[in-house]
């Protein structure tokens, strides 16, 4: 494992807030028989990934559907139990805290890491008013005295750009963008340090998407939040990130500073992914190199480099040896035998 080196841009503290080291999450692969299910193997949804997120920075995890982004997020939050690896928030060992079930510490961890879901329609209880939705985390975490709740709700709504008198409305009365703001307000209620945002703008229209992305930028600067931003949409990633980690079939194949990755992708999958994005500029439709084929099934993970079945630059060694992740320049790491 290489030591992931956080972005050293001004304004970003190099001290990591979140450290993920060798995270593995596998699911049993079951075959349904006539009378019972038998476990016939495993699905490696996340395969030995390591990275860190510094205080105040955005690290984005990008990759196509099924590459393990959501599983990684859920494993970090301990919504699913990691199979292997170490995860630390500040100095707290997350896995040990959950394993020993130290209740106050578990609560403290849950408070500091909040999740913003992709689908603002599914993640808000339709029978609760906005006030109930926003006070629920306050109640669970005993975060503020009850007499302060109304004021907290008001300031949360204001914080995310909604009028305070929306507090007594219900989710169905809001547009998609407004619901996502409510989802963000709920995550902010307990003053977390890290927001894990899983495709938070993917279901929103362009003009609303821009507003929510700007809101995320505002909140980060005003509150010093760190973001683990998960998305398949590289355009929003380019806007919001300090660094990017690229995943393919459960593996982290490249990680580095955002402009560096877009300007000089070294792994061939990263290059293919970037070149596949249609640019909103008809005069700039230059050399595209569409990669052929489709992502192999997780149950038939290719040997060696997981990308070798589609890679235009594959060498014989690529199907035999797993390329190690390494960063020749100390910041931009990639796992490739024959980098670009």
């Amino acid at each position, binding site marked *: 494992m290489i030591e992931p080196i956080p972005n050293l841009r001004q304004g970003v503290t190099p001290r990591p807030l979140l450290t993920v080291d060798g995270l593995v999450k596998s699911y049993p692969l079951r075959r349904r028989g006539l009378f019972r299910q038998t476990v016939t193997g495993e699905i490696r949804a996340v395969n030995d990934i390591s990275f860190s997120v510094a205080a105040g920075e955005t690290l984005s995890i990008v990759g196509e559907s099924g590459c393990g982004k959501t599983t990684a997020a859920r494993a970090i939050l301990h919504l699913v139990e990691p199979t292997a690896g170490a995860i630390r928030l500040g100095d707290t060992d997350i896995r040990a805290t959950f394993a020993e079930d130290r209740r106050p510490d578990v609560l403290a961890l849950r408070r500091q890491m909040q999740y913003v879901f992709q689908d603002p329609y599914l993640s808000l209880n339709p029978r609760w008013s906005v006030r109930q939705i926003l006070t629920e985390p306050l109640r669970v975490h005993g975060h503020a005295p009850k007499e302060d709740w109304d004021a907290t709700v008001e300031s949360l709504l204001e914080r995310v750009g909604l009028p305070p008198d929306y507090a007594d409305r219900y989710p169905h009365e809001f547009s998609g963008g407004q619901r996502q703001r409510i989802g963000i307000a709920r995550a902010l209620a307990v003053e977390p340090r890290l927001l894990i945002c899983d495709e938070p703008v993917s279901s929103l229209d362009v003009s609303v998407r821009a507003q929510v992305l700007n809101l995320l930028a505002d909140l980060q600067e005003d509150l010093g939040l760190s973001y683990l931003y998960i998305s398949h949409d590289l355009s929003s990633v380019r806007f919001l990130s300090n660094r990017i980690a690229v995943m393919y079939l459960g593996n982290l194949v490249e990680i580095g500073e955002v402009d560096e990755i877009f300007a000089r992708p070294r792994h061939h999958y990263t290059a293919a992914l970037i070149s596949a994005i249609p*640019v909103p*500029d008809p005069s700039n439709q230059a050399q595209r190199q569409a990669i052929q084929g489709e992502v192999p099934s997780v149950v038939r993970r290719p040997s060696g480099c997981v990308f070798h079945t589609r890679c235009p630059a594959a060498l014989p060694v690529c199907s035999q040896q797993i390329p190690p992740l390494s960063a020749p320049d100390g910041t931009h790491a990639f796992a490739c035998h024959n980098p670009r």
Partner: protein
Amino acid sequence: MSSLATAKPTAAMSIDDRSMLTPPVHDLVRVENLRIQFPPWNAPVRIIEDVSFQVRAGETMGIVGESGSGKTLSSLAILNLLPPPARITGGRIMFDGEDLAAKSQGEMQKLRGRRLAMVFQNPGYSLNPLMTVGAQLGEILKVHEKMPRSMALQRVEELFRLVGITDPGSRLSQYPHEMSGGMKQRVCIARALLCNPALVLADEPTTALDVTIQAQILDLFEDLKARFGMSMIFVTHDMGVVARIADRITVMYAGQVCETGDKHAIFARPSHPYTQALLASTPRIDRRYAIDGEGRRERLPTVGRAVAPGQSLGGGCRFAGRCPEAAPECSRLVPQAAAIEPGRVVHCLKRGSAGVASHD
């Protein structure tokens, strides 16, 4: 086959002859003041109001707009496939000199699948889960082209190869659920091409796909267009996709056309305030976003005003509630088409459009 000029393209012709039948440039489709309404009819909601655009032979018209702007309903109307109780209540849809809006269901059924074909967003829903893909596509050829089964299957296999389905022979006997989303979309594209349509309507055909697969399918559409010279209406919400695939573009907002014209002109000089806002607020992978010395990030430009809760489908310009340039008359007068450049039309009172009081 005596004269190519009069020969109707048939499925039996080899794939490469057909591009020679491409007629000279003319409007294959002219949608004129299309209006679509939902009940109650005494106080009808005009979901689509006076939408007009043309599609020339051999060209791809990209229809772009955010969700709910009426892209799907406008394209379904062309095929006479509006979901009940929606109805066309005004305007014409001229296709090869005939008004499709005036045709009977029976006549339209004959046209669909022959001269007109559609590719939908979700290939899973539009394929029959109970039939192999070979059988369901072969069936269409049997019905429409009266082709014997073995010949039909051969033709389907040929089309499968053409749309980039690997191992096409053995795919014929697969069911849709045995295929990936990208593969199913290729099957749907093959189905659309079965009877050599003059016009293919594709409604967000790549939206449900991953980007590397989307890139493959966009390449495929470009390739097919170059080979067959068919016309296409390509509906998408993605400014990047439309920049790539379209020749000309129609931008829609809340059931009205904002502007229509050549792709290069619209991207270089967007005229309508909504088009300008849409382009400005789209984050892009091909540019750097600045971070200043304090770590403050640049912001994305957003549409002038906060989103109104729900779009107004009332009188006037429907963008008025959000438009940074809106004037009082904008919410009263419907902007008519104004030609601002050759081949370019914009609907905006601040860009020279005449305003017509809403006829309620």
